[in-house]
């Protein structure tokens, strides 16, 4: 098990045409490039792209990534992304924000469906999330946990297990 930073970051320009269809073009830069330098390079490149194309460049994303290099078999047996732990917070602006953690563990769910925030692992997660640097989507700090409970989402077709057939002895038996 190893989590490593990718050697490159990607700079992706989203383009839109007159019909509203979207496409994107991605470029790579070394991952050590600072966001300021990446922005400078991207802003130099954008007019050169628009000079080639009839499409409009409507957005630019700079993405730095880390990946698990050996993910096979690391997910716990019976873990399912449909089973969520929902954590709702109040923000410093008085709004609320929710996070849904997939595959929430049995051990932290109380019999009535609440999540036990007194469990060490849960409280450590909550303390981290309320502390810097995490914010809501408006850049406002989270201040207090308002609810924590278990929730199930509907299983969509792509979420069905890839292996669905019974083993051979059932057919034989």
């Amino acid at each position, binding site marked *: 098990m190893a989590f490593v930073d990718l050697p490159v970051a990607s700079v992706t320009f989203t383009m839109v045409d007159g019909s509203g269809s979207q496409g994107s073009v991605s470029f790579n830069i070394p991952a050590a490039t600072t966001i300021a330098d990446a922005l400078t390079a991207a802003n130099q490149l954008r007019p050169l792209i628009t000079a080639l194309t009839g*499409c*409009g460049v409507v957005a630019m994303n700079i993405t730095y990534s880390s990946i698990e290099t050996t993910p096979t078999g690391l997910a716990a047996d019976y873990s399912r992304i449909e089973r969520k732990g929902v954590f709702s917070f109040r923000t410093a602006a008085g709004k609320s924000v929710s996070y849904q*953690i997939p595959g929430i563990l049995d051990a932290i769910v109380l019999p009535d469906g609440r999540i036990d925030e007194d469990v060490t692992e849960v409280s450590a997660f909550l303390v981290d999330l309320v502390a810097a640097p995490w914010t809501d989507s408006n850049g406002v700090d989270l201040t207090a946990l308002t609810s924590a409970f278990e929730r199930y989402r509907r299983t969509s077709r792509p979420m069905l297990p890839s292996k669905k057939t019974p083993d051979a002895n059932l057919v034989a038996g």
Partner: protein
Amino acid sequence: VLPVAEVVFTAVDGSGSSTTFRTYVRSALSHTAALQAAAQLRGRLSAISGCCIVRVDVIYRDPYLVDEVGELQPSALFIFDCGPGQHAQIPVYGLLPDLVDLVDPFIVNVSAPPISAFVDELTSGIWCNPFAYDLQHCIEGIVQIRP
């Protein structure tokens, strides 16, 4: 850049299904600090979830306003040499008709000033292929029309 950067955790469960968990940091935070904070939060997530976190992306977004736009087709596919055994392919949508070769309609006119300026910028040092090899020179540009 938008005032917040998005931090996206991708999780895989025991059946192989995947989903994402998203949170945010202020975009003034450096990407290295954001990745460090994400690594710590990844550990916290792993302690309360049976899913395996397989990827973390820190995404800084910058929206633009545009006025008039044309068509996505055709696109130009630029092939770059990145040193021994290394290449890069970069598609650009909506290639302007003026930039197509006058003789071969499936080749980009790489000597046209907008194309050469684009290629010169990409080969100027910072840009690389997905394996961090610098783009060195453009081998050719191909005109593509997709269904």
